[in-house]
């Protein structure tokens, strides 16, 4: 059963996953080509100075890519389920409805995390060429909330798309925007360092939210007028 569900999810997200893999790796390669230019062809210490003392973030252009990846993956996964209420097929499978939702959500999330780990691996490899561990760590702490925001956005889009009523979809979207934007506050590097635990925790807690919309769907909330 697990295999079958994961197979279905894989069919839905593989293209989106591939696109975001390429997009992210392309963005990172671009970042490090710029860094290379800054270090090799300009004054290396000037370039470092701008990062270390003046707080410029060489990975800044990565900012919204994890967010878009989270949104894109969730849409790829849930749009085919919501279209013509195909989620009924999924709920009808011989498996508990909450369990099947969590399996889908878990698979998507796992795929997103793998994608993010690949991004981070490329980030590490590139950074290690040009910067010492302190700088890598500083930028890592700075970009971490963006990745956590991508995870939260992924879960919240699932919640919004499965919700049967448009009015509530809009309300959820407003709250989701307010919530997810907290992961992307414009701030100095490392500003989130004391709050990573909070943002990690909230990102983790969003994982099961899709159950709420699933419940409302099964109860027939859209049929109550």
């Amino acid at each position, binding site marked *: 059963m697990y295999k079958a569900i994961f197979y279905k999810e894989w069919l839905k997200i593989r293209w989106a996953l591939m696109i975001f893999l390429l997009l992210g790796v392309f963005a990172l390669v671009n970042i490090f080509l710029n860094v290379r230019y800054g270090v090799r062809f300009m004054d290396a210490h000037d370039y470092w100075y701008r990062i270390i*003392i003046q707080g410029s973030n060489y990975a800044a252009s990565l900012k919204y890519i994890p967010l878009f990846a989270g949104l894109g993956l969730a849409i790829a996964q849930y749009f085919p389920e919501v279209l013509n209420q195909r989620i009924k097929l999924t709920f009808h499978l011989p498996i508990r409805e909450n369990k099947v939702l969590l399996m889908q959500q878990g698979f998507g999330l796992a795929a997103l995390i793998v994608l993010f780990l690949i991004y981070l691996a490329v980030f590490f490899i590139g950074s290690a*060429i040009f910067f010492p561990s302190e700088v890598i760590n500083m930028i890592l702490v700075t970009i971490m909330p963006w990745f956590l925001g991508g995870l939260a956005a992924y879960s919240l889009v699932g919640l919004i798309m499965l919700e049967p009523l448009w009015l509530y979809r809009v309300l959820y979207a407003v709250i989701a925007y307010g919530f997810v934007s907290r992961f992307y506050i414009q701030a100095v590097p490392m500003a989130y360092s004391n*709050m990573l635990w909070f943002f990690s925790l909230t990102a983790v807690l969003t994982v099961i*939210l899709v159950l*709420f919309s699933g419940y409302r769907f099964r109860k027939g909330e859209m049929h109550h007028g």
Partner: protein
Amino acid sequence: MVKLSRYILVAIGILSAAVTIPSLYWTIFREASSVPNVVYSRVLDDFMMIKRVDGVLVRADSEGNQYTRDEFEQLLPVLFFRQRLTSGDMPDTLHGVYMDHAMLSKHSANFTIRPVDMSQPRPVLWPLLESESGRVDLELPEDFFRLHDRIEFIDAATNKVDKEKSALFQQALEEGGFSFPARLIAGLPTDRKNVDDGYFIKDNRGDIYHLKMVRGAPYVARIDIPEDMDVIHIECVDLATREFFAYLFTDDNRVFLLMQDDYRLQELPVEGYDRSLHRLRVRTDLLHKTIGVIGEDQVKVFVVCNDYDLVDTFHKSWEPPHQRRDHILFSWIFPFQVSFLNPDSRYITLDVYQPKGIAFMLLHIVLGGVALVLSKWRQLPLKHQLPDLLIILFTGIFGFIATQVFPNKFYE
């Protein structure tokens, strides 16, 4: 699990509402408050102040006598010396001290430190400039140093440790008795300053060291500070007079100057100063230093002469923020406000502001009643709504919004 998912949603809803709605409230209802700018006149030997009242700048002395701009500036020739020199009514001497443009200019310095300046990420590596290069301009070095369990210089172009230079400085620090790792590093990592004084570093034992590079060689000096003094922040300055290196802030909210002369410590009168609440402003001029401790509802000013004897003090307080109309109205509507951005920190924090009193409880009870009526109208069994009612009683408008957006419709 489904119920848990709803409570998580309600929590997210409350959080989002508690961030956005109060901040909207403040943009609409915030009343301007003006903190007087207090200065010391050696002409009157008294304090004078400028304050914005209903949008108009009012200049007065401590008795409340008002002055025109010209009159005011004439009484403060040291502060407004540039204007007075241009206007041609600058006195040559004051209290027997001869004043000319060069001297006034050299001694004139302003220093301000706010809570936010002490709560921000510190650089992770530092550039150590050459202090005596023999060149006119300072230059940034090609490398940056780290100071954990040892000192290491990392070359920016190659991203490699300069072993030779690192060993040289490591040896100097060890010989100086430095205890690794560094707890605090302070300096002015820029080439846009008059002179380079390197860094002041608090070591693992709490001792303060002075580290700089002189013609490629390390200079390490241990600074004697009292045993019980815990320096938690150092703010370096670049004074034309070369009188002192830095401001030292201690754990118990005392403030010292680290003098250039033999690393002597000179304490400043800052009675009542709290570095997490107050702005500290030190205005240095040819004749004296004016130290202002400025809070939301009070300002204290201390004047010392050039040998740091206390000349005069000033204290003025006014109604605290929570007695202002905008805060009172707030306290009737909102039980709290959550912000991730804090004016007193450059870190993202989970800052919870609570108004004084429990005036908001009235609204909470009303909203609880509304929720009760709504659930009756929707024919929802009452006992399932109890947790929601409790949430509304505690979180008021935020909980009301959250529980309505994510309605409780668990029938069984």
